[in-house]
């Protein structure tokens, strides 16, 4: 009974109830966006300069927010950010360039791509300049990145009159020394700045000063309550009086809320079919589906035999019925991977065009699998495949126990493999942290692994040909480490034959994606997708679908399927003019 029943029905009002999928609510945490669990909720009381659009290929597409507009120099080296003149903090103070500068200063204490103290880091900012109260100019360092703009615009803005005191008076001088100085002085300056990190994280302003549509009123371990910010620049677009963000510890709680019709919007969670049906039956319930640049793969440790042999990897790919796996593991939140390209299918089409169809699809084909295994020298005895030396071949698929969809997928794969004479079993790790640790230590032969993290093509292939596969980026320089060391658990070869493109170093190519031009990126993505498809460092299993749940009985005008804003919080939707109060009696 938390819905607004007052006469505000036409103009707005009521409580909007939702869940922040990326954040555990923590009542002990400060109201501070720099704190990873701080009670600042993106889009509600947390504001960035702009909000990223969900474009499959272009990471630099943004909706304006605090930054009303921006201009980039043609060589992408300089960005001018123009703040909205009507942006105000919830205490009535206008949002100015100084706020942005302080926010950037604070960001430096935390480290990050755009605000790295090392000027040689890819995409690091070199200079921050306040041009006028509403204009900030930021220049990029020598090592340019194609995502520089995106990183700048994602900067979270905090009020200088609240957070400013965290920066020492000589901060900007210190920063200069750290970035451009030499020797001990620079090191000392660096240490001083990073030394501020803890203080910044721990800082608790006590009450919320927000530039967003809402201000945090109260938070308890179960929920956070936010009320309208009367000074928000687009306040007339905001329908609800209050927003209630609920905490959750397990997906099933979200399911229950949804079935009970309590949530106006819920983030993506994996949902069993039966539950999905119940949710759909709930009054006013609707499901919005959209693109989410994440895919799940079965990754090989090529340092372990027999997975060093590409024929074995291919054979396994031919034995896995991805449609069945998806049906069992993620029936509502995933689509079976069309093939292994390292890219989410939707983005892959955009990047590769018709080239996508030219990739080998690895349809389920036991005969081909047999051939591949034979090619790898594996032998079959009593209907069971054995290693070339005759020793038994045990395929152990590792998954974290806490992800029941992954567990189900792994089980399904192992059953399918077993059907074809491959002795396969599932081994779970107690939790995700342990899983990742052991995975990185090279303890597993096979494990499930997230790939295709778009839209930036570097991010996409960095999952296949990045740190996990031995390529490390240090101060703008790439180096390759031996399999089994320093987190290189995929253990792929440093150079591979890419057919028409000749022998290539996929890690190097991936690194180039960072700063290459659009056309160059397209070429490299083509090569890397082909390499991924032929070499199969992973078998892509399914691509995630961003499944959002909304309830239209209290509010309407949610974004449609595949909307560009789908991966943003409903707070941002409101800022963008979506979400209106539902008219009485109309559902």
């Amino acid at each position, binding site marked *: 009974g938390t819905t607004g029943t007052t006469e505000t029905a036409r103009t707005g009002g009521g409580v909007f109830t939702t869940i922040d999928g990326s954040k555990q609510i923590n009542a002990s945490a400060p109201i501070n966006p720099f*704190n990873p669990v701080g009670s600042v909720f993106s889009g509600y009381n947390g504001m960035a300069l702009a909000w990223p659009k969900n474009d499959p290929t272009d990471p630099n597409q943004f909706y304006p927010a605090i930054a009303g507009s921006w201009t980039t120099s043609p060589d992408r080296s300089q960005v001018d950010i123009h703040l909205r003149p009507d942006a105000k903090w919830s205490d009535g103070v206008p949002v100015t360039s100084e706020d942005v500068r302080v926010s950037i200063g604070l960001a430096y204490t935390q480290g990050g791509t755009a605000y790295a103290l090392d000027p040689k880091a890819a995409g690091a900012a070199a200079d921050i300049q306040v041009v006028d109260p509403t204009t900030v100019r930021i220049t990029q360092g020598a090592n340019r990145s194609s995502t520089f703009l995106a990183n700048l615009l994602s900067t979270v803005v905090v009020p200088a009159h609240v957070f400013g005191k965290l920066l020492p008076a000589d901060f900007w001088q210190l920063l200069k020394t750290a970035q451009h100085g030499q020797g001990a002085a620079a090191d000392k300056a660096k240490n001083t700045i990073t030394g501020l990190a803890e203080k910044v994280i721990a*800082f608790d302003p006590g009450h919320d000063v927000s530039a967003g549509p809402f201000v945090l009123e109260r938070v*308890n371990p179960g929920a956070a*309550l936010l009320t309208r910010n009367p000074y928000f620049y687009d306040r007339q677009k905001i329908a609800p009086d209050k927003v*209630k963000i609920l905490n959750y510890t397990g997906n099933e709680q979200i399911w*229950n809320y949804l079935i009970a019709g309590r949530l106006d919007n819920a983030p993506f969670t994996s949902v069993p079919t039966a539950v999905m049906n119940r949710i759909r039956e709930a009054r006013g319930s609707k499901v919005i589906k959209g693109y989410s640049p994440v895919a799940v793969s079965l990754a090989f440790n090529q340092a372990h035999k027999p997975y060093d042999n590409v024929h074995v990897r291919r054979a396994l790919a031919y034995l896995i019925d991805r449609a069945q796996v998806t049906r069992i593991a993620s029936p509502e939140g995933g689509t079976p991977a069309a093939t292994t390209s390292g890219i989410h299918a939707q983005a892959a089409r955009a990047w590769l065009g018709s080239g996508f169809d030219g990739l080998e699809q690895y349809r389920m084909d036991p005969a081909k699998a047999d051939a591949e295994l034979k090619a790898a020298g594996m032998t079959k005895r009593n209907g069971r495949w054995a290693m070339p030396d005759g020793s038994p071949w045990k395929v152990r698929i590792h998954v974290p126990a806490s992800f029941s969809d992954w567990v189900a997928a792994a089980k399904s794969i192992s059953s399918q493999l077993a059907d074809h004479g491959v002795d396969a079993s599932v081994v779970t790790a107690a939790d995700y*942290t342990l*899983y990742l640790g052991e995975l990185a230590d090279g303890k597993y032969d096979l494990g499930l692994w997230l790939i295709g993290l778009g839209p930036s093509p570097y991010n996409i292939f960095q999952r296949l040909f990045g740190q996990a596969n031995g390529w490390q980026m240090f101060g703008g320089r790439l180096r390759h480490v031996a399999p089994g060391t320093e987190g290189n658990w995929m253990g792929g070869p440093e150079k591979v034959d890419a057919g028409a493109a000749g022998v290539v170093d996929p890690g190097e190519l991936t690194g180039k994606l960072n700063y290459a031009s659009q056309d160059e990126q397209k070429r490299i993505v083509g090569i890397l997708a082909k390499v991924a498809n032929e070499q199969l460092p992973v078998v892509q299993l399914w691509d995630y679908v*961003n499944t959002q749940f909304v309830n239209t009985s209290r509010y309407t005008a949610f974004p449609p399927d595949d909307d560009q804003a789908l991966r943003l919080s409903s707070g941002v939707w409101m800022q963008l003019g979506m979400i209106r109060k539902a008219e009485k009696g109309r559902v």
Partner: protein
Amino acid sequence: MTQTVPGRHRAAAIARKVAGHVVRGLVMIWAVATISFVIIREIPGNPVLGQYESLIQKGMSPEQAERATAVLYGFLPTGSLWQQYVGYLGSLLHFDLGRSLSTPGVEVTTLIGHAARWTVLPVLAGTLLSFLLGVTMGVYAAIKRSGRLGDALALSGSLLHGVPVYVIGLLLTAIFATLWPIMPSGGPVDVEFVPGLNPGYIGSLVHHAVLPVVTYTLASYGGWILAMKSNVVAVLGDDFILAAELRGLRRGIVFRYLARNAILPLFTILALSIGMLFGGSIFIEQIFNYPGLGLLLVNSISSRDYALMGGTFLVITVGIVVANIVADLLYTVIDPRVRSGGAA
């Protein structure tokens, strides 16, 4: 034989006894702290990597996830295991449990303090409720033990005693929060109410506590009914009850004799289970999203928050140790036989 001991002597003797208990308790706390320290530091897994990948898993962009986790590297413990241990013991002496990694920048003591509130409330209520219920039913089951009703009560006790708490919790949520949603399915209180002594807030507190408390009550009720039943049966066989009846004492008085004698040994168990309550119930808190110590511990383990894990462990242990001491002393105080030295 009675013996008159000067009051001062007796007080000194009690003080000596308490001191002995406290020293033993401290040694035990130290031992458990050390064991848990070693085990905790040996847990594999990189907490920062874990956080980063979880954020990605939840759909955050890699850049954002990196921003959110980069700073955590500064919170990882450094130095050799021995150095860490010495530092840990040193800060323990100042009641400093260190700083949390999963809620960076917040003192572990603060986190524990907040969580303890939510643990103590429902578990204490559940313990007391189940105690009262179990004891009453236990008496009933003992008195009617040869009848069908007594059998049924005892069997229900044995079964409930056996049914794991998570089964009860799951069933209750399924029924009262999903099928017939009259109860909230999680959280400790509705955030819409201003905290304080206003009816709305308190009502909401109670509303949210009902299911956890009922679950806890049902889960521990079985133990009480069984213990009480067997105690009552034993006391019923004692001669003084028959003697009281043969002296024509009122039924009520005989019943009081019976109940007091049977319940006395349960008080120590009660003290112990109240001590256990700092451990909360991991299952209950997990199922009802109740932000108590149990959940705190689970989260601290999965996020490899070493300081928080150690701190929570310690608090739970201290609770048990203190309860043991209290139980021991309590017995001395409430049982006249032990009180006066048991020289009979």
